[in-house]
């Protein structure tokens, strides 16, 4: 048997039986799945959206609440701060007067120019 003929025989025996036959049933099965693909796609989109959207929403709400609490909470005022605040007022009071207009001297000596 020549190689060409031998190969032809092999194709007939081994490869031809693999060939599927056309089937309308197959086409309809594919089309049924195709018709359902849109809702499935939408579901997948929604699922992928919720996968990051809900955690992101939760995180932003938590940080917002935390920011509100921190700003609304009254800060404990230390005596240092109180003194420093006063000092500024006092220093401006001192600065506004010239040496001649020293209120302390005025009060102590009772001199009134």
């Amino acid at each position, binding site marked *: 048997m020549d190689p060409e003929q031998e190969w032809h025989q*092999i194709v007939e*025996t081994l490869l031809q039986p*693999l060939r599927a036959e*056309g089937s309308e049933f*197959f*086409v309809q099965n594919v089309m049924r799945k*195709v018709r359902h693909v849109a809702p499935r796609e939408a579901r997948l989109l929604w699922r992928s959206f919720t996968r990051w959207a809900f955690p992101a929403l939760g995180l932003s709400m938590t940080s917002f609440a935390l920011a509100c609490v921190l700003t609304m909470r009254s800060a404990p005022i230390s005596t240092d701060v109180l003194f420093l605040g006063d000092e500024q007022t006092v220093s401006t009071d001192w600065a506004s007067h010239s040496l001649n207009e020293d209120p302390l001297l005025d009060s102590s000596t009772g001199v009134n120019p």
Partner: protein
Amino acid sequence: MSDDFKIIQAVLAGDREAYADLVRAYQVQVRTLCRSFLLDPAEAEDAAQEAFLKAFIALPRYRQETSFLAWVYRIASNHCLDLLRKRKRHKTDSLDNLMDQKGDSGMWASLYGTALEATDEGSQDKEERSRLAMQLLSILSEEQRQILVLRELDGLSYEEIGSVLHCSLDGVKARLHRARQKLQEKARHFLDQNSLIK
């Protein structure tokens, strides 16, 4: 503009039912390719349906540079390879398993003889012939079976096969040559055995 491309544009414009024409036109090729990969008719049917579905979903990404058939072939091949990877190596029905069980190196030759007889007699039992052929073809790799089907059954040119397999013209020729050689060697072994018996 090719007919396929017109249909694709209609589908993309919203006419989903037009996709049935593409499925009808290429179902035989895709189902045959899936059979050659998976060597299981039922599994191949499901794989072919999934391949068409994947092609439908990916249709907006289709470019006209390749034919729709080559494109859908590639989708089907990748899908079948994924399935094969998942199931690793299905040995229950494969010839390897039979050989392991019976330790008979001439098993292939004797099965080939049965297949030849069935072909000569024009046996009507197509399922049986198909099952036998699948068993015999399991000696080839998936890639070798794929290339043989593309060339011998679908009649694709070397260039078309190259675009499906993403390989050069020389690569296609070399792979095809190796696949043919392997089958011919086995068939010759059967013929030699037969002539010795006679």
